[in-house]
């Protein structure tokens, strides 16, 4: 097999549990099973990739035949792919407080039900709570003799409250996801909080669109770091010529207050003990004090374009590894929240996140807050709803004028190329000058 330069197999098996309680009715609660592997072979040029359900690692001639099948696929590739050398290391999976798998489905259903019940109050017409739990056993091996395994269990819940009055309808929600163990106990206040937000939003007005000073709360500022910087620093996009950050390493692209990091070794929701190519994970500073310092890389993109560190390849079970973020955050500054409010003067405070999206080649991003408040003379004023923020990456990063000292991380999921992976984003409060705020209001 002289035309086969490298192979690897990533096999993930496990089970997922979900519970869905809608207006007091247990709609579904149960467990499903999955078993998927992906085999990659590097031929004389590029990759042949085979996804296999229910993988049993064959040995001897049968395994060689499997490799040969992938090599046959690779025969149609034209791009000469090289791989950067890999450092190997497994980090211990963070300790869990209470393993969700040791708690019965009945008890988890009762705990979730308590959160859902807590969201019922006057003005609320619907309450819904869902729980997801996913345990994965991962095994990675490659042609250089690497053989790594790990086991993780992520779990969490979402609670949604819908409030309605005179035909108007608004929603409030809370969510918590973790890889540190069951987080369903004593969370009734989260249900109440979702309900309070939904009811309060009935009286909120749409924000007026335009340029203004905006304070982003830690959750939204985390999404800002993810959308405005994280994606465009992904080595595969840079390699394709589809990132506005291509060729800009060493250049000042943002405020000197701004340091943005991706760190899969942090014990947060996006933690990986090793990446999807069996490479050691570590902290990567994408931007340090306003200067673009590193891209995020897989072995392939590191070899192709350099300027950064590997260990950032991730994959859904059965899918091929691609460059992804893990735990992405803005480093703390030294401003406190009161100073940020005061410096904002007249503007808007944006809270929570309904997600975001970026066109990395054009360098334009959008993300949406759950709600916000007008800021008038440094004081918090009326509540506003349905506020988005958009911007151009290269100009917006210079607009960060204050960075707080109160960083928090928020778990979520990020989609790219049809693959969804667990991530966390975080930041302290951040003050942004000349933010382009989208809203349909007149005030």
């Amino acid at each position: 097999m002289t035309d086969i330069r490298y192979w690897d197999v990533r096999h993930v098996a496990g089970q997922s549990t979900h519970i869905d309680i809608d207006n007091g009715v247990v709609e579904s609660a149960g467990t499903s099973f999955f078993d998927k592997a992906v085999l990659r072979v590097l031929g004389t040029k590029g990759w042949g990739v085979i996804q296999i359900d229910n993988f049993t690692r064959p040995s001897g001639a049968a395994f060689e035949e499997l490799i040969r099948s992938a090599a046959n696929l690779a025969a149609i590739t034209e791009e000469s792919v090289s791989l950067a050398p890999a450092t190997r290391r497994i980090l211990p999976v963070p300790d869990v407080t209470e393993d969700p798998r040791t708690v019965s489905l009945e008890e988890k259903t009762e705990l979730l039900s308590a959160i859902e019940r807590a969201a019922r109050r006057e003005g609320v017409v619907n309450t819904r709570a869902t729980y997801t739990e996913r345990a994965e056993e991962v095994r990675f091996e490659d042609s250089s003799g690497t053989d790594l395994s790990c086991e993780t269990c992520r779990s969490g819940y979402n609670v949604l409250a819908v409030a309605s009055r005179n035909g108007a309808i608004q929603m409030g929600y809370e969510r918590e996801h973790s890889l540190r163990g069951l987080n369903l106990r004593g969370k009734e206040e989260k249900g109440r909080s979702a309900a309070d937000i939904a009811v309060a939003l009935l009286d909120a007005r749409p924000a007026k669109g335009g340029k203004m000073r905006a304070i982003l709360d830690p959750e939204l500022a985390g999404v800002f770091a993810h959308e405005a910087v994280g994606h465009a620093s992904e080595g595969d996009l840079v390699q394709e010529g589809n990132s506005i950050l291509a060729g800009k390493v060493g250049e000042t692209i943002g405020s000197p207050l701004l340091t943005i990091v991706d760190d899969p070794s942090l014990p947060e929701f996006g933690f990986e003990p090793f990446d999807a190519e069996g490479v050691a994970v570590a902290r990567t500073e994408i931007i340090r004090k306003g200067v673009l310092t590193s891209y995020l890389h897989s072995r392939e993109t590191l070899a192709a374009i350099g300027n950064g560190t590997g260990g950032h390849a991730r994959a859904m079970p059965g899918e091929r590894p691609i460059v992804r973020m893990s735990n992405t955050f803005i480093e703390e500054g030294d401003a406190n929240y009161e100073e940020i409010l005061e410096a904002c003067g007249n503007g808007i405070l944006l809270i929570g996140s309904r997600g975001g999206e970026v066109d990395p080649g054009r360098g334009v991003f959008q993300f949406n807050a759950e709600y916000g408040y007008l800021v008038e003379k440094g004081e918090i004023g009326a509540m506003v709803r349905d506020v988005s923020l958009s911007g151009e990456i290269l100009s917006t990063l210079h607009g960060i004028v204050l960075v707080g000292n109160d960083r928090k991380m928020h778990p979520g999921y990020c989609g790219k190329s049809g693959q969804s992976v667990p991530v966390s984003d975080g930041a302290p409060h951040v003050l942004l000058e000349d933010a382009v705020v989208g809203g349909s209001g007149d005030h």
Partner: protein
Amino acid sequence: MVLRTFSSRMRWWVAVEIIERILAEGGKRADEVEVIAVSGSSVSADLRKRKVSHAHETRDFGLGIRTIRNGRIGSSSTSDPARWEQCLEAALASGNLATPQEWGGLPEPANLPRGNLSFDEKVSLDPATAGQLLQGILSGVETYECAEVTSASASLSVSEMTLANSHGILYSDRKTDVSVSAEAICGQSTGFEFDSSCGMDIDPAAVGKRAAFLATHSVNGKDVLTGTCDVILSPLAFAQILGQVIVPALSGRNVNAGRSYLAPFLGQQVFDPALSLYDDPHIPRGLGSSYWDAEGVPTRRLDFIREGTVGCFAYDLKTAYRYGKESTGSAVRGGAGGATSIGSHNLVVGGPRTDICDERALYVENLIGAHTANPMSGDFSVELTNPMWVENGTYGEPVRKAMLAGNAFALLKEIGGLGKETRVLGSMRLPAIRLNSQHIIGT
């Protein structure tokens, strides 16, 4: 393709044998049993810039089981047919936790037309064919000198779904899918286009050409001021708004749970009389076409919006029995592992067609952040992709950056017209739409 080592390569009759065993065993322990088996294969290839970098092959299998006992619905799924007994146990255990509900039974076999509506036997899973599709994309991109492909992909797939229940239903349907997509860039201006069909009748060169046109034409966009103007949403941008806001509001579950703005308006004129929206499950070669839904209920045309009036809502069996309605044959399932939910088959926008590009308007190809629209209230504020002025039927000056803010329900109350050309976007068929006096946030 030679793939003898895959245990997942289930032949149809093997799947049927397992299905019969599950029905027999499950029938002893539950009132009713339903089994769904999905198997699929695909080949695909990706371009990075101008060269093929990856070739992939997948073989999937999934088995889903639902059991009903005293109105308690349980479900589970597995990708491993050998674990069917564990999967059946998990389904029964899940039913024990579900809240019992009114239940009138799974459907009996019906005399449905035979044949596969979205299957083309000419689709062969050959990596070389995927390679030829990619070459077609490249030839289209070359129409525009400035544009370069950043990435592109082509895939061919075949899938087979078998649905059986303890009342004697044993339906089977095969589908084929051929999809291509291309991303192009010209300087910092990007363009994206895609197409899919159940056969080989797609034009990859046209896809490449369109992506390249969008990238090229959007170069040197001019600023636009915040204010109001007429907007034309491309079929894709229109589909994003419909999918995120309007379609969920037509789900009988959301309607009865208080999560739909449209709930009080059945039979009432809510939208512009020029707007109709219906599900036609029997379109020959329609990607979502099927004679039966994911629960075996015969499908039929559903007029959700007829000349602006809300005509009906969509129901699956569970929701219909709970609220005293009839299933509309709207159950869908995301593969065997996905839960049954309410959806549509081929969603079609109807209504009179006119020349909507004669009068000056801001044309929008795509929305960044459409998924952040509020599905309850319909409010959204999104960033625009490839915004450009259009007048006298031709594309004019591009706009650098703009946001559109509004409410999806409100903007369809009075539309400026539907375009003459209908575009097939997966399982949606719709034209461009003109919207008068929309709120734009410029730079």
